[in-house]
């Protein structure tokens, strides 16, 4: 008997050691556990563009009320799942002390870790391939640029030769050739640089790269000077040509050119005005105001409650003038044939002509549907009943129905926008198919 008593007591002691405990403490920086916050309701007043104010109750985390959840097990196992909102406000606590969950959780964790490692390796391989492709493309682009300039140079040589063979002035072409030749040299240098830095084993010579960069800088400066000189030369030539041709040409081309130039000047002046005028370029709109709830007691120790604004209302710049939403338009859809349609005698086609009053801006043709309402208690959508729906230029909605649509009662639903700025709306139009 004594043995039984000892075993019983030991059992109780051992079993009592199998404890799982969920502890929630007021959080400090060093408190272990999953954090959550208690909510602080805030009334948000949002001024709308139409002059009204929209009020919404939002729940923000009260950072002064932060807690940490932690579970501990002694000779036992548990599963703790804590879900919070994005704001950190507590959403769900699931606590399942169990002996099997740890093993399955462990397996799951190993699986997740393996999956994460594979994903990481895939990402690394993809990144390496992308980088290699980019290097390859850079070299190819540089080669293509060199080839293009070589082709241009060859074309200019041919042009100069042709002009000179006919004793024509080739100055302009020669200037262009000089500029292109400089560009080609720069492109060749760039190609060399690109090849040395984008191929394996070619990136080591830093000093050479630096010298090449210096050389390139000098060439760019020389090329820029050459371009400026060429431009000036071209302008002189242009003036000379204009002077010579003015004797034999009419003023039509010059007039057209002046119109274009005037428009360009006007736009430039407008831009300049926008940049330099003192008043703000854009209108402003009122910002929201947040109200928190304050509770306390009055002088008679009676409870009180009130809203307290937490911010002064500001005006914010907008990208465009605030506009009120378009007033809703009450659109009515009418069937041209009084709601009863029959198949066309020759083609067997079934067509509905719907007339909107007033007119509509657009219809959502892909969302036009037909509902079978023969059984009023259980209406059913008819799949593929609408072949095509179109809003014509005359503002009439033409709906071609499946010619096999059986005899019966239906409802056509047409989604539309009454105006360009109006929200999407829809109307139901009952109709009957007779055969």
């Amino acid at each position, binding site marked *: *008997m004594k043995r*039984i*008593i000892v075993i*019983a007591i030991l*059992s*109780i002691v051992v*079993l*009592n050691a*199998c*404890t*799982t*405990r*969920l*502890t*929630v*403490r*007021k959080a400090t920086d060093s408190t272990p556990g999953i954090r959550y*916050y*208690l*909510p*602080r*309701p805030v*009334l948000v*007043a949002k001024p709308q563009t139409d*002059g*009204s*104010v929209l*009020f919404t*109750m939002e*729940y923000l985390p009260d950072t002064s*009320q932060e*807690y940490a*959840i932690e579970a501990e097990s002694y000779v*036992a196992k*548990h599963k703790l799942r804590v879900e919070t909102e994005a704001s950190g*406000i*507590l*959403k*769900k*606590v*699931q*606590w*399942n*002390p*169990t002996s099997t969950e740890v093993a399955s959780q462990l397996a799951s964790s190993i699986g997740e870790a393996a999956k994460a490692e594979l994903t990481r390796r895939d990402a690394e391989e993809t990144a390496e391939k992308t980088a290699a492709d980019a290097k390859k493309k850079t070299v190819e682009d540089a080669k293509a640029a060199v080839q293009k300039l070589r082709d241009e140079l060859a074309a200019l040589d041919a042009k100069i030769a042709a002009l000179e063979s006919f004793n024509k002035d080739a100055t302009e072409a020669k200037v262009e050739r000089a500029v292109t030749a400089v560009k080609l040299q720069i492109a060749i240098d760039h190609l060399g640089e690109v090849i040395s830095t984008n191929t394996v084993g070619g990136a080591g010579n830093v000093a050479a790269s630096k010298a090449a960069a210096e050389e390139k800088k000098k060439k760019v400066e020389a090329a820029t000077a050459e371009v400026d000189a060429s431009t000036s030369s071209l302008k002189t030539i242009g003036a000379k040509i204009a002077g010579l041709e003015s004797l034999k040409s009419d003023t039509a081309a010059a007039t057209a050119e002046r119109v274009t130039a005037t428009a360009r000047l006007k736009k430039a002046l407008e831009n300049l005005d926008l940049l330099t005028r003192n008043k703000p370029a854009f209108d402003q709109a009122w910002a929201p105001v947040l*109200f928190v*709830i304050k*509770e306390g007691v*009055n002088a*008679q120790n*009676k*409870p*009180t*409650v*009130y*809203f307290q*604004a937490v911010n002064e209302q500001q005006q914010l710049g907008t990208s465009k003038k605030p506009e009120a939403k378009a007033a809703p338009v009450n659109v009515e859809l009418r069937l041209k044939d009084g709601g009863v349609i029959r198949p066309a005698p020759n083609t067997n086609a079934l067509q509905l002509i719907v007339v909107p009053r007033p007119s509509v801006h657009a219809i959502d043709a892909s969302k036009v549907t037909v509902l079978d309402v023969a059984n009023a208690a259980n209406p059913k959508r008819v799949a593929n009943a609408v072949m095509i729906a179109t809003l014509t230029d005359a503002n009439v909605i033409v709906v071609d129905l499946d010619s096999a649509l059986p005899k019966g009662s239906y409802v056509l639903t047409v989604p539309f926008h009454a105006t360009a700025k109006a929200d999407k709306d829809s109307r139901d139009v009952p109709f009957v198919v007779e055969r």
Partner: protein
Amino acid sequence: MKRFLASLIAFVLAGCAGMHVTKIGADTDFTSSGIRYYGSSPYIYVTTDNAGGLTPTLVYLPDPKKKMSAYLYNIVSTNDATLEFENGMLKTSEITADSAVLPKAVISALEKIAVAALARNEAKDPPNVPLPYIFKVLFDVDGMPYLIDKDGPIDAGSLGGLHATKGD
């Protein structure tokens, strides 16, 4: 004796899982170890209806004066517990009970009182757009609801009748 021991073990095993919920204050917040959450209380906030009138809205908000602590424990037992919260408030019968305390007719009357009380205050110095105003619904010892605002409890009897939310 065997029967006694079996009963003892059964007692120990059966009584070792559960949840204790207690209301806590600032003094016990640091020593309590349960899941903290706020109980809810009914409030009425009144805002402009953007058409010259006022709109009262009854909401159940987390009440800082009802901070609760739910302590879950488990000794030699299984205790599958799930607590779900909405906006930080426990979704339990507590909210339902509060709703039951305020039948529709009472809510309607309280909303009218709130609007009338606000109209009385705002008439003195009406702003361009009325600021939002909040009332809390409390219950007296007899379970009768009454409203409090920034000045304290509202004496509904002194209002001298109800005002419409919009003038004629």
